[in-house]
């Protein structure tokens, strides 16, 4: 039955249709935003949609849970927590209408991507998050995947011990690419923000120019007409840019979004390396145990502590055989651990690589869309400017008709 394998995305229309401001305490400043998630069955559109309210930190918790539990999955990213790389006049207030709207769009995208992912969408926490008011937190808490200490140690281990990077080229490349891409994208974002600042100042200067022309026109005879018209068009030119810069800012959200994925890639690769390391540890342990057992069995440990012990405490053959048996069963356990670790690594690698491929396709599509929108936006800015300057120029043509 396809029903069993379909994702939440297949079954439901998922939207964040509204936002609300709530207060966490009596103080007016302690307000936060909640987002209204609506899920409506695709199969039956007349059915009432299921509505839940969630705030940003809820999304965060859910995501951390998913990242910890499904470590090979490239979990979709959330909009940034603190606003970065904006031009100086853009909306800085986290609760302002525009910022909330931009967040809403990206949170919606997050939900839709999660629900489109077969593994993630099947998770009960996700389903409860979307379809029931309460209960999802409980699932997350009891899953014990969000063990803080555990999540700290791996990266701690990796950094301090400076273990060898994986030898697997695919993962190695992915890691390096993620680092490099993140860097260049942040450079682009930073440069764009500075450029936006400059552009804003440039347009503003034309306000002054428009005023100069208008004032000047009062003292001129023939020239005055042209100056007045030009002044009027200069004013309208100066006022154009603000709206476009806000739009550009919002567009950059999506680029930041893409940059965030780089971190996700890195953690997947790091998890892979952790598993590989685990695996090799198990094998080393197994090897050690085998060697020990063999050495013990053949009694070649004359100068070791154990030999001394057995001599001192008077071991007899019976105890010796018992000991060897214990060691053997120990080794069998270790073999099992090894095999498990091996399977884990292989499974992880297989799934992670599938995820990476899928991510690459998605990234390219999204990048294309972002860049295309950027070009179209720049074209629109230039068109508006062209209109103004054509009017300004025509103000100074001889023989123009009065407005």
């Amino acid at each position, binding site marked *: 039955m396809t029903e069993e394998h379909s994702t939440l995305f297949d079954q439901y229309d998922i939207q964040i249709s509204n936002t609300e401001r709530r207060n966490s305490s009596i103080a007016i400043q302690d307000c936060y935003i909640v987002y209204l998630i609506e899920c409506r069955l695709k199969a039956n559109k007349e059915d009432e949609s299921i509505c839940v309210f969630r705030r940003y930190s809820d999304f965060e918790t859910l995501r951390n849970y998913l990242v910890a539990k499904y470590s090979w999955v490239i979990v979709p990213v959330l909009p940034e927590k603190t606003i970065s790389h904006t031009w100086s006049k853009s909306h800085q207030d986290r609760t302002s209408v525009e910022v909330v709207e931009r967040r809403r769009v990206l949170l919606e995208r997050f939900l839709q991507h999660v629900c489109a992912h077969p593994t993630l969408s099947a998770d009960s926490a996700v389903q409860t998050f979307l379809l029931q008011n309460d209960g999802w937190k409980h699932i997350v808490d009891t899953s014990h995947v969000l063990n803080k200490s555990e999540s700290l140690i791996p990266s701690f281990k990796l950094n301090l011990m400076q273990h060898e990077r994986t030898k697997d080229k695919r993962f190695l490349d992915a890691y390096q690419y993620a680092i490099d891409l993140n860097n*260049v994208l942040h450079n682009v974002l930073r*440069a764009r923000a500075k450029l936006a600042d400059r552009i804003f100042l440039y347009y503003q200067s034309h306000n002054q120019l428009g005023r100069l022309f208008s004032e000047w026109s009062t003292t001129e005879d023939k020239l005055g007409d042209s100056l007045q018209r*030009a002044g009027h068009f200069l004013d309208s030119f100066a006022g154009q840019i603000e709206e476009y810069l806000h739009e550009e800012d919002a567009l950059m959200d999506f680029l930041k979004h893409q940059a965030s994925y780089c971190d996700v890639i890195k953690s997947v690769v790091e998890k892979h390396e952790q598993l590989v390391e685990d695996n090799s540890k198990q094998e080393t342990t197994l090897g050690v145990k085998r060697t020990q057992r063999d050495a013990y069995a053949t009694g070649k440990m004359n100068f070791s502590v154990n030999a001394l012990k057995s001599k001192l405490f008077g071991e007899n053959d019976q105890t010796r055989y018992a000991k060897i048996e214990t060691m053997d069963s120990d080794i069998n356990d270790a073999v099992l651990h090894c095999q498990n670790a091996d399977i884990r690594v292989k499974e992880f690698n297989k799934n992670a690589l599938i995820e990476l491929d899928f991510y690459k396709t998605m990234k390219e599509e999204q990048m294309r869309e972002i860049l295309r929108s950027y070009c179209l936006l720049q074209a629109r800015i230039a068109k508006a400017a062209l209109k103004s300057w054509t009017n300004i120029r025509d103000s100074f043509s001889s023989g123009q008709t009065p407005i």
Partner: protein
Amino acid sequence: MDDPLSRALREDEQGISNAHENGQTTPNVADPDCLEKTSSLSISHSHNDWILPSTNERREEVEVNEEQTKIYVGDPKKHKSNLDSFITYLVTMQTYNDGVQINETNVRRRYNDFVWLKNLLDVKYPFNIISPLPIKHTLSKKLHVIADDGEFIRRRMNGLQNFLRRIINNPVISIDPSVQLFLTADDEALHSAQQQPNPTSPLTPQMTSSTSNPFRQPIGRGKPIPSEFSRTDNQIQMLQDNLRKLERLSRKIESDQIAIHTEEEHLLSTFKQWLDTERKYDENDSLVDTICNAEQKIVDNQDDLLRTTNTKYIEPINEYVLFTGVVQDVLKRRAQFADNVTASNNEEMFDQLTIANETIKADVQRWTEGKDKELMDLFHSMANKKVDFYTQSINAWEQAAAKLSTPTNHR
């Protein structure tokens, strides 16, 4: 005319010599109107005679004259003579009759020749508005550097052309024999004219003596300055103020533009870094490549625009500020003369004052029309450059957007 160029020019501090009439050919010989005009005014061109223009008639003739004569300054060439090296410019004058070219003269002149002519005219026609010459050198450039600065030479040529154009537009001055000499005579004739002693000013010391007390009330007839001239003075002052403001603001906007340009270049370099990263890991680079190309075009266009802003726009504004200064000087001279006339109670001087007033009125009228047209043209061409720039930008971005619409295949 923008000819490619970069030649050496070193200024000589020569004294200016007087011009004497020589056997020159008048270019408008074939023009019947001009001949008539010449004869009816019985011009003797001796320094002490004043020419009284009657306003309306003159204006038509001025317009007719405008259509009929075109002046070009171009083709700079470096000359090395025994003692120095300098640049000469080709001065071309073409006369037309009803759109048909009937004559053309070409002479080569250097900057100092223009200086000679201007000084001569300044002395001879104190109550006419005589166009300033392009500046000798900018503060930032030493004399020796001028030679290799193509932009400076171009601006200078432009200024020299304006100078001559405005002289030709003035019906009184354009027929001055020195002007004719300048425009048509060969080098020898010009040099010998320049050797002549300085012209004497038509203004007697009496007329130009400035009273030591600037606050002295006019005595005698007690005539105040005609309100018309004080109004003109105010207007010129306001115009100058506005032009100064415009220049300041234009420089600010230019520096804004430069700042933008720097950031655009920076943005372009970040795009290129991105492109390199994609290529390094064998990823699909076509998307970023497209953006890089578009951004590159923008940067190049901005470069173009910036290069011309200062020279084609800000400098001319600056020169117009200076030009308004010339008008103010003429008005001041008149006011001073008027003071002296009322003080001296001299009938002959009073007549000359009347003539001077009329000359100035006509010139101011002419100047104002010229200013209107020249400023309109200036603003028009500047706005047009912006129009071109934005048109090119739109093309670049729309092309890029189109390229990004079609899904590309992986390499």
